[in-house]
């Protein structure tokens, strides 16, 4: 199967959207494209598992390698492993949900859907790339749509947030670029597979790892470069928030993971710094969330905390923790998208997101309130939902590290769950339960498209929560490969 289809399909959808007339046509085309992409991703999963079952144990399946810039040894090299496939599935689910919740977007709808599709195209391209140049190319493709989506359709201080987000992400990619140049000039290739085989000299790793890791870390809200997250998410329109937290931040986590496996020596050498920053992000994010009064800010700050788990899992550098990091990426993507969708639905009806101004929504809109509660419970890690599985795996992995300081980091991160429970339950209690104000009493419940979007995301959360072995089965061989890579440490000196 040709993976380029994953890029061509969104491209085709985007072109058709440009040609379409009227909101009805545009959204139907957008949805059709997204559903087709979801189908494609499902089919990819089926054929991937079939290949694996047939005993194909290659690190990357469906590889294809074409020369792009011959003179510079840049290739369009694509292929997927279990981790990228999990990310592709996540992206395609969120895109469908995002388009469904934007069903009634009537302000400049053509441009809006076009940019959403363009953003998703960047993400797909990123996840299938096996060449660092192509990877970088798609990473940056996804930045500009975010700027425009927030700046044009956002709320609040939208232009400032959009600018902040775009500049910080560009700074991230500038650092990534320097890191990649360093790798290129010491290995003479951008090809991930080749670099993995030949290895990078330890000195080079130690010099360039910080550039590349911090660069991707900015995308993944690594402390102290997380400041774009709250403003960006809060100002963005609903679908853009879902894409940002659900897809875009995952580009960063995925990138960090790849960089760590390409430069294992440096990853080991710097792992204590990574863990330190991740622990700070987790705790700081959790406490900062307690202080928020705006629902979107609550979710945005809690995203910093949750993405900290991803970085923590990567920093611990063992099989279980990395597995946990990947599951946390998928879980957080689904959960936070669901949360933002619910907040968007509430906001479009009540025109406020301030917790104190809401109350008793369960009486007026039971469906939306239930969605909100489910997202909240998943966020605080209730067993049965994906959040529990993911965080549990990360903690178990972290605990395997016998070092005292690492154990302390694990304990502190674990304790943050209590704080999570506090802010989630408090927000739920105030906004969903209790007496309802008169003006909110007559508001309508979710429409069909909103219900569909929510159900789709909830199904994803439940699949991971109730049958974690499915996703484990998918990603485990790939994490094994990464661990094999990690164990090559010290062989290169």
């Amino acid at each position, binding site marked *: 199967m040709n993976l380029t289809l994953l890029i061509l399909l969104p491209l085709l959808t985007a072109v058709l959207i440009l040609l379409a007339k009227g909101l009805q046509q545009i959204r139907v085309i957008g949805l059709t494209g997204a559903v087709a992409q979801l189908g494609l991703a499902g089919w990819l999963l089926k054929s991937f598992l079939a290949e694996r079952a047939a005993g194909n144990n290659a690190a990357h399946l469906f590889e294809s390698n074409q*020369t*792009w*810039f*011959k*003179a*510079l040894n*840049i290739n369009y090299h694509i292929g997927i492993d279990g981790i990228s496939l999990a990310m592709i599935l996540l992206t395609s689910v969120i895109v469908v949900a995002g388009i469904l919740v934007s069903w009634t977007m009537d302000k400049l709808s053509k441009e809006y859907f076009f940019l959403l599709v363009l953003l998703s195209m960047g993400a797909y391209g990123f996840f299938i790339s096996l060449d660092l140049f192509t990877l970088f*190319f*798609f990473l*940056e*493709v996804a*930045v*500009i749509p975010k*700027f*425009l989506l927030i*700046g*044009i359709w956002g709320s609040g201080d*939208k*232009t400032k947030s*959009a*600018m902040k987000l*775009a*500049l910080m992400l*560009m*700074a991230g990619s*500038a*650092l990534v*670029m*320097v890191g990649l*140049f*360093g790798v*290129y*000039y010491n290995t003479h290739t951008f090809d991930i597979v080749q670099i993995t085989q030949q290895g990078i000299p330890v000195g080079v790793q130690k*010099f360039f790892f910080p*550039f590349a890791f911090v660069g991707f870390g900015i995308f993944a809200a690594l402390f102290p470069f997380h400041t774009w997250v709250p403003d960006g998410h809060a100002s963005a329109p609903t679908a853009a928030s879902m894409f940002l937290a659900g897809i875009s931040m995952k580009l960063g986590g995925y990138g960090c993971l790849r960089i760590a496996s390409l430069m294992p020596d440096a990853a080991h050498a710097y792992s204590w710094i990574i863990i330190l920053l991740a622990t700070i992000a987790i705790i700081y994010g959790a406490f900062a969330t307690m202080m928020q009064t705006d629902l979107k800010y609550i979710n945005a700050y809690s995203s910093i905390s949750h993405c900290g788990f991803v970085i923590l899992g990567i920093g611990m550098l063992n099989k279980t923790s990395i597995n946990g990091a990947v599951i946390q990426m998928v879980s957080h993507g689904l959960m936070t998208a669901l949360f933002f969708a619910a907040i968007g639905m509430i906001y479009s009806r009540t025109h406020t997101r301030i917790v104190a101004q809401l109350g008793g929504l369960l009486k007026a809109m039971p469906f939306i309130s239930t969605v909100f509660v489910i997202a909240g419970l998943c966020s605080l890690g209730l067993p049965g939902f994906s959040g529990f599985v993911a965080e549990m795996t990360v903690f178990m992995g972290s605990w395997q590290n016998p070092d005292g300081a690492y154990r302390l980091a694990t304990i502190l991160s674990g304790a943050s769950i209590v704080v999570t429970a506090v802010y989630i339950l408090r927000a739920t209690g105030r906004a969903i339960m209790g007496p309802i104000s008169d003006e909110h009493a007559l508001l309508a419940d979710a429409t069909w498209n909103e219900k569909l979007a929510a159900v789709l995301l909830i199904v994803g959360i439940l699949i991971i929560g109730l049958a974690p072995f499915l996703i484990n089965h998918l990603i485990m061989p790939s994490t094994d490969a990464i661990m094999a890579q990690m164990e090559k440490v010290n062989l290169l000196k």
Partner: protein
Amino acid sequence: MIYNLIIQLRQELVLTVLIFLLLFIKLGKDRSNESILNFINVALLINLGAGFCCHETGALFNGMFNTNVLIVFEKDLLNLAALIISMQSYAWLKESKHLIEFYLLILTSLLGMFFMISSGNLLMFYLGLEMSTIPLAAAANFDLTKRKSSEAAMKLILSSAFSSAILLLGISFLYGTSGTLTFSILTAHINGNPLQMFAFILLISGFAFKISAVPFHLWTADVYEGSPVAVTSFLSVISKAAVLFTLVNLLYKVFTPIASTWYLVLVVLAAATILIGNLFAIRQDNFKRFLAFSSIAQVGFILIGISGSSQIGSASLIYFILIYIFSNLAAFGVVSVVSALTGKENISDFKGFYKTNPMLSWVLTIALFSLAGVPPTAGFFGKLFLMMAGAAKGNYGLITFAALNMVISFYYYLRVVKAIFMDENATPIEKLQVPAVSKLAMYICVAGVIVTGLASVVYDYIYSISIGL
């Protein structure tokens, strides 16, 4: 002999014939501006085609005039840019009474650049340079009713006379230490003695003036602001490109023995140029001044690429110039149309531009993204390859500095995009009727911006013909 002459000089000959024809048309009876414009555009197109017809490597006039595939390609680029500018100025020139004089000046300048690029001798180079600069100063004065325009012309002629003087002093010192001005012989005589180094510094300063590298950039913004948009775009794209082509040729072929020296000079110039250009661009409101400073910053990136002193470096330079032609001219094209039809030239006038002119807004936005270096536009590839060429030297401090400066540049380009799409304006620029020819020029630019990057054929071709140290 005569056959050789015609083949090797074909692009220059077409231009010369065109210039004389224009003179005769001027003397003859009045014709409509439209027909003259169409005639000139077709002639430029023919000249562009002439570049592709036959590839001949050779030298004329005792090595004074050289030609090869690379030089012909560089001339093609300049020709393409001239054609696009000519098409874009359609709305402005249609009403002009001095249409023919404008083209006489511009085309003479272009001819001078052709000779400069082809020169194999410093005297020839100097002649070409002067021939390209002086008509431009007259052209800068072309808005006869505006005082700013004559101010710009005055500044341009003074500063270029000054820089030419410095250049000439450098050339004469070089002659004094080596006894020759011919490139091919000169190399053997370059040994880095103090007077020669002084001569080299003078030469480089002269070049830095022409490409407006910091600290020789002070004339740029005023001249760009005062001149008519067509002349500004000519100055910022064509004249810079021609000088840069010659600079690379000199550095990579003549001054090879002192490569480590000019590497340092380029690094300092590049770093200063990028930073100052960026910082000043942030504060501009006049669109032409804004593009002036942004083009200064772009030159800084180009210098980084050249400093890599490899085949990748020179190939990336030419590639970047091609992309820069498309992206800068697309931006100037929109500014030119808006300025010709409404007289507005400020970024704040563009607030709410998207509501009234979505098509022009997208053209401008894509152009700015390409200048900023955002994929999938070609500017991304152009800038990345320049930086990659620079990184080959292992000077990662400079590369990091440049990479972070890209973020600053991103800010001011996005500021314009923000004004177009996001800012509210009670009195936005009304819906504009863009002439078909200008529209076509914009579409060519946008197509160029999108295709040149993704289609690697272009880069591979340029790489195959370019030179390394």
